[in-house]
């Protein structure tokens, strides 16, 4: 009887401890990856809570304006998300935002929502200075050629 009481008490303490640590981890975490430009800023283009809730809607409106009507330079732009939120890896290269542990994937993996954006959109910042004209960047074509044909769907 006594032993079961103790084990019950321990169990509750353990549970409370776990809950507390989980909560504190959740509360403290900003989900902004170290080494990204976003980490040095106070907030995104809108307050953090607004962005967390509505970023997908902002992007969806913007994409239709841009693709269908040719309106560019919108306040909410996916390429700017990537410019700001991509962190720099150990090799000095930018990490893809949809890689494990990176900004987009961190939350999207948690909520099990696949960000389909990156089937088409670039996941690392593009080098500045070649907005138009030739892509002189040598690393430009390298990675995609090594990918096996027709295996990866998303």
């Amino acid at each position, binding site marked *: 009887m006594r032993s079961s009481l103790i084990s019950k008490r321990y169990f509750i303490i353990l549970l409370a401890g776990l809950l507390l640590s989980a909560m504190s981890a959740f509360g403290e975490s900003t989900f902004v990856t170290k080494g990204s430009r976003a980490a040095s800023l106070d907030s995104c283009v809108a307050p953090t809570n*607004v962005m967390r*809730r*509505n970023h997908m809607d902002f992007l969806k409106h913007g*994409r*239709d*304006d841009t*693709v*269908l*009507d*040719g*309106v*560019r*330079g*919108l*306040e909410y732009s996916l*390429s700017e998300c990537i410019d700001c939120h991509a962190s720099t890896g150990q090799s000095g290269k930018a990490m*893809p935002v949809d890689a494990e542990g990176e900004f987009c994937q961190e939350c999207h993996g948690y909520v099990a*929502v696949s960000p389909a954006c990156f*089937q*088409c*959109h*670039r*996941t*690392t910042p*593009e080098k500045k200075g070649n*907005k*138009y*004209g*030739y*892509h002189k960047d040598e690393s*430009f*074509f390298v*990675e*995609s*050629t090594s*990918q096996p*044909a*027709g*295996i*990866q*769907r998303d």
Partner: protein
Amino acid sequence: MSKKGDQPSMERRQFIGGTIAAAGAVTIAPGVILHAVADTNQRTEGASSEHRWGMVIDANKCADGCTACVDACNSEHGLTDLGRPETDAAWIRTVKLKDKQTGNISRLPVMCQHCEHPPCVDVCPTNASFKRADGVVLVDRHRCIGCRYCMMACPYKARSFIHEALSDQSVSAPRGKGCVESCTLCVHRIDEGVMQTACQEACDKDGHAAILFGDLKDPNSEISQVLKKYNSVQIRGDLELNTGVRYRNL
């Protein structure tokens, strides 16, 4: 996805903010209307039906063995050469035509002709294939299901299908597996006000100047002047699609 009903209303907050801002603007001085807050972002105006973008290509000036336009297009839009010519994307193809009677060979680059009445738009089941207000025919990849009807419908064989998963795309040309694509007439340049396509830039740089891009609706534009002065044809003009790309000396 979450239902929209559980979202806090942002409209109310914006309405209050907007009302305060409006009141502020009015009270500055009677009779003076201040144009709202300065536009912080560089929002462009977008496509307008006052323009119709097109090209004239001079087949005589297109040099044998030159692939400058194709290479420039590939690098501008990040079209990767995967070493599989049957399935690799090609927004521009160089075509050789031989007159069997005379043996005369003419060369010309063929890309999306940006028809006024595009068959690809007619057949698209999801409205992914569309024509912009300024006459540029595009694929909205957010809607494209990859059925390839448009590829069948296009008389110019201008469209490509992406067969393989991609990475490291160009920011100005997002593209991915399972979508159809074709020449965009460099819309990202048009929208930013750069009046030169990548292919024209490369062709000019190589000194051939076979490609001329411009506004077909503006009678004073260089392209309109050239078209007025010289004879030009549409490929498969019999289809009456009224293409935006025309050819000289063909």
